[in-house]
């Protein structure tokens, strides 16, 4: 939390546009993200949320626009002008990506401990004892019993897999984590546990997060700021509680009024 009010943005996004043929994925998206800030991208299916997330995380090249990231040495670099080796290093160390489907972010045929340890080895850790100790510590932090460290994730429940994926991502102390519907497809009690865990880890580690979700309750609990997307464009943006409590755009009003009250 210490550098939350630092004046230098971590990520600077300018006019990012992605076409699929002549169809729009996302169009002309610009924003800045500061250290320690959690930004939620909300909108219905097909609104361009995931396209934008993939462009930002260098998984999908944008048709136009620029994305700059502040490297650990403080320099702003255009992500799509990085060399392949630099880009891979960034993704393996300084960034995390939490997929909706944990199987996309885990190696399902190696043990839980190895899933966490692999990221550590990517940053040069070679000491087996240290790797195992750190992996055990991280499994504990995501509430996975240490006696499951040698089991592979195929034997884990959906909620456990998702928590393991989070541990795998956070073990290298990334500065920026992308999340694509991290609680999607989990039942509600598992969701609540995961959300609480994420909320604590994000605050404790001072992470910057860009989280795509269609669940406004998730956005409210985790995010500081929200961007509402529709038809590939950002139609409304602001403080999370301001957008949810005083929505201005017709579509945002529709989204907010469609939440089921329990």
């Amino acid at each position, binding site marked *: 939390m210490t550098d939350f009010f630092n004046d230098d943005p971590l990520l600077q996004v300018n006019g990012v546009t992605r076409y699929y043929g002549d169809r729009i994925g996302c169009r002309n998206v610009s924003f800045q993200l500061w250290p320690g800030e959690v930004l939620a991208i909300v909108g219905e299916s097909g609104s361009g949320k995931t396209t934008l997330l993939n462009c930002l995380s260098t998984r999908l090249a944008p048709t136009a626009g620029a994305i700059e990231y502040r490297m650990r040495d403080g320099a702003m670099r255009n992500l799509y002008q990085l060399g392949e080796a630099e880009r891979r290093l960034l993704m393996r160390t300084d960034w995390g990506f939490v997929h909706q489907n944990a199987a996309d972010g885990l190696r399902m045929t190696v043990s839980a401990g190895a899933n966490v340890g692999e990221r550590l080895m990517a940053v040069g850790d070679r000491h087996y004892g240290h790797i195992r100790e750190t992996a055990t510590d991280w499994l504990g932090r995501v509430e996975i019993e240490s006696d499951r460290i040698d089991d592979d994730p195929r034997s884990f429940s959906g909620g456990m897999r998702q928590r393991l994926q989070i541990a795998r991502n956070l073990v290298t102390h990334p500065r920026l984590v992308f999340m694509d519907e991290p609680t999607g497809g989990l039942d509600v009690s598992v969701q*609540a546990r995961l959300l609480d865990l994420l909320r604590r880890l994000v605050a404790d580690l001072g992470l910057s997060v860009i989280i795509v979700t269609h669940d406004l309750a998730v956005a409210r609990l985790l995010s500081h700021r929200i961007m509402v997307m529709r038809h590939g464009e950002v139609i409304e943006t602001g*403080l999370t509680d301001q957008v949810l409590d005083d929505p201005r755009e017709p579509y945002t009003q529709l989204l907010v009024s469609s939440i089921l009250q329990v």
Partner: protein
Amino acid sequence: MPVRLYLSNVGKSFTMHLQGGTTIPVVSGVDFSVDAGECVVLGGPSGAGKSSILKMIYGNYRCDQGQILVTVADEIVNVADAEPRKVLQLRKDVIGYVSQFLRVIPRVPAVEVVAEPLILQGADEGKALAKARDLLTRLNVPERLWGLPPATFSGGEQQRVNIARGFIAHYPLLLLDEPTASLDAANRAVVVELVAEKKQDGVAMVGILHDQDVRDKISDRIVDVTSFRAEAA
């Protein structure tokens, strides 16, 4: 005493796009100021816009017109056009909000819910937790509940947890949104004491209070919101 908060010609309306774009005027020409150590109570019937004014000061509702100026050390910030992260910084260090409703976070024990704002302001965790226990004791929340998440508490218990959370940190400006609604007399008296202590510390407060007795005890001045009534366009 120095001015802590100044609302200058503030106006607000809601446009309801789902109801054919109807515009509902809320308030216009809101103009008042609050000094350090002063408690101003907003008066007027339900629907006059009292809550909307508080929410605009907190940055929870957008402000369509005018300025909401908050004095922060030697700087003056206009909440009405501040960037989101500036508003978040103000909420951490400068503006507190006490409401009657607790937004429950799963699995966090009551004592931590209460201590959190003080810890965020940089206080030592042990001291913050001690102060949280002290406030929960004063507000008659039974000790056996402190270690439990408030989701399963009664409405009154949740409300008192929320009051403790609202009063624990030092904010130069504190907004009170009916904190005593449906509290019993003993707990209302505690809130009156807490407000008096904040005044001693030079905190500026703006409140909405329907209890006549609490209002008489804590208000230094009443601002009648009906005079800011917006006319339908």
